[in-house]
């Protein structure tokens, strides 16, 4: 047949460009820091996930450099064959100890954890019950499974129980999945109630705590510690790429979970393992969290100050109780206008507009950073106040 084998590449890309739907990532020149350089402009960073600024912590950087010297630049293989180093195992032991669980397993990324593990936990004849606002990578994991899926209204425990009751007699296994901290709204899932309901109906629980790890709970130990239910969530999943300041996905739970997960997750089995520098940085990040509680404290001090001031100005911040603070703008055009104004004023915060959120719920999503000083926050707040007034939001 006479066909152009590659023609679709440009055609589909051009179609995205025409609608302005193509990604145009902005470039950071230098480290992801509380104040950093984005395409030549110095800005206060309010949209990175580097909550604790650990990516710049001298001890963690030093641990990475040391590991390159002692273990080399790469790991040589996948974990299953010849790519498991002592550093990988130490990192997993430290995660389990830190989160008060029996065991832990580290995946290449958070996405690899969800996409690799979820489809193995349930199969045909089983059901996954999921919060409607769960993160994309959970949704992907859910879709890769042959199990049925039930969806419940965001954080609605009444509806969760109704779905559990309906599923109880129809299915073999039931798996309840939720985000710990929801990334768009910054609210926390009632994991304690979810665990209680799951236990009542004999269901497994899986909490994706990507935005809670290093942020909520004593010393930033995550969602289990936050609710005092450590070890009771069957799969506590998290990531090293946010508050820990490194990269990598993790799951914490029982020995049985670890044994099962590493033998069954194709993402884990078929990707090369983390380079030594990454594994050493993961260990050092946990060290820092255990020994230097000031970072988490500072993150919350900053968060409280920022939220208080921004509310005082008359902004609506939704239901957020975490360092993710959405600043409601109403229509999409206003959120875009405010974001552009902020960038000009040296504040980097992105608009979240329709269709990511409802048509009248466009917002600027801000993420706090422990490395920001009071003067930075005041500068950002001043820009928000002037911008908010200029755009007619406050």
């Amino acid at each position, binding site marked *: 047949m006479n066909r152009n084998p590659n023609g679709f590449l440009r055609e589909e890309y051009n179609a*995205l460009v025409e*609608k*302005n*739907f*193509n*990604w*145009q990532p*902005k470039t950071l020149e230098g480290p992801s820091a509380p104040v950093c350089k984005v395409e030549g402009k110095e800005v206060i960073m309010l949209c990175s996930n580097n909550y604790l600024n650990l990516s710049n912590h001298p001890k963690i950087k030093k641990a990475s450099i040391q590991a390159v010297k002692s273990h080399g630049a790469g790991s040589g293989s996948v974990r299953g064959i010849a790519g498991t180093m002592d550093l990988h195992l130490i990192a997993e032991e430290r995660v389990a100890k830190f989160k008060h669980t029996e065991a832990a397993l580290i995946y290449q990324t958070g996405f690899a954890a969800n*996409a690799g593990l979820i489809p193995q936990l349930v199969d045909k004849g089983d059901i996954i019950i999921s919060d409607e606002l769960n*993160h*994309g*990578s959970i*949704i*992907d994991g859910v*879709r*890769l499974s*042959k*199990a*049925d*899926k*039930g*969806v*419940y209204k965001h954080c609605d425990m009444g*509806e969760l129980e*109704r*779905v559990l009751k*309906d599923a109880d007699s*129809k299915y073999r296994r039931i798996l309840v999945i939720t985000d710990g901290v929801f990334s768009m709204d910054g609210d926390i899932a009632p994991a304690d109630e979810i665990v209680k309901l799951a236990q009542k109906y004999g269901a497994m629980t899986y909490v994706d705590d990507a935005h809670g790890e290093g942020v909520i709970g004593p010393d930033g130990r995550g969602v289990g510690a936050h609710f005092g239910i450590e070890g009771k969530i069957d799969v506590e999943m998290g990531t090293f790429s946010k508050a820990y300041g490194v990269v990598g996905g993790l799951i914490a739970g029982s020995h049985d979970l670890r044994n099962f997960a590493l033998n069954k997750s194709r993402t884990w089995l078929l990707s090369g393992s983390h380079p030594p520098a990454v594994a050493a940085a993961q260990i050092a990040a946990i060290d820092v969290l255990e020994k230097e509680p000031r970072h988490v404290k500072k993150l919350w001090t900053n968060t409280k100050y920022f939220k208080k001031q921004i509310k005082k100005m008359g902004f609506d911040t939704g239901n957020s109780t975490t360092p993710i603070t959405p600043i409601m703008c109403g229509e*999409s055009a206003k959120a*875009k206008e405010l*974001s552009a104004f902020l960038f000009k004023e040296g504040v980097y915060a*992105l*608009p*979240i*507009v*329709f*269709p*990511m959120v409802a*048509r009248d719920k466009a917002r600027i999503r801000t993420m706090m950073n422990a490395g920001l000083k009071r003067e930075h926050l005041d500068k950002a707040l001043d820009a928000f106040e002037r911008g908010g007034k200029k755009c007619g939001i406050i």
Partner: protein
Amino acid sequence: MLKFRQGMLLGVCFFLTLCIIYFNDSGDWGGMMKVGFIVNPIAGMGGRVGLKGTDGVIEDARELGAVPIAGEHAAAMLAELRRIYRNSDIQWFTCSGEMGASILEEAGYEHSIIHETSADTNREDTLAAARKLLESRVDIILFCGGDGTARDICSVIGRKIPMLGIPSGVKMHSGVFGITPAKTADVLAGFIAGELKPAEVEIMDLDEGKYRQGEWVVRLYDSALTPFESTLVQSSKLMVTEASDADIINEIAEYIEELTKEEPETLFILGPGGTTEAIAKYLGMDKTILGIDAFAAGSQVGKDLNEAAILKLTNKYNKIKLILSPIGSQGFVLGRGNLQLSPEVVRKVHRNDILVVSTPAKLERTPVLRFDTGDAELDRSLAGSGWLSVVVSYRMFRLAKVQV
């Protein structure tokens, strides 16, 4: 376009329709939007004087003192549109006089006349205007009227282009109407901006035959497209994909096809509606939108069945699954548009084997599902605990409230 699940197997980005990224400007679709505009000047006149509509009884209505209200409603909608949508990229196409032109003129909108109305405007004018608008390749038809007008326009345009109604009739059971004239302007503005997409809705009206026998029965006549917020799915970080209704229904159909393969001994009965029609097409069946059809062991075993034929067919199978789609907003699963599925038929089906299918967006705007088979005891048992699991995508379910 690639099918969903092929993308899914790649494990990359599953909903391939549109990837909308947060920091880009969206909404500018470029070019002009062509809007057709038809006003039924006598719509709604019967209401205040106690008539069921104005179809064929306009003289009675006038004698009873009815005054025209449609023009006023249309003008209110246009005034709101002018307030909220300031761009001048709408091209209007309409009929002469009070069927459109005079109202657009008063609102200050330039327009082209595609149909010269007769002296005493009537139904033929609506049909002729709809035909001309279709020929003019308008993007949407905005009309002012009730169920009768909606039916007339839909009979011409079908699901080729979307339609949107400014509510002004005596009967407005169809899913194409805005809540108020002002809200209709908001919907049109959303459609022009590309935020709202055509989705399928039912065209309902009073069954005139039954009405003449003294019964007030609303039934399903057709299926049309109207702008709605799409089903949104987050497919990766900060990226949301907007899945079209057709894509979602395909996902549902894929699941139903799997069921038919897993259960070759089961008789699958498909009720009326656009969703079930699309599922039937996926299964390779020849289905009418209003009819009831049956499928078993990979092939069609019944077409446009009446109650007797359904009962006869059900006797041949041990297990029966009913696939039904609720009527949008009103929520009827049984008892409207599918009376062939009589209580006797429904009693042969286990409650867990009644599969209600709906796109999530449609379910969202349908607050409660209803069973109205005419047998109160059966309706109660179908309602069960008051919640029903509805198929909303491939192997995906949501509980919906059922009126007990």
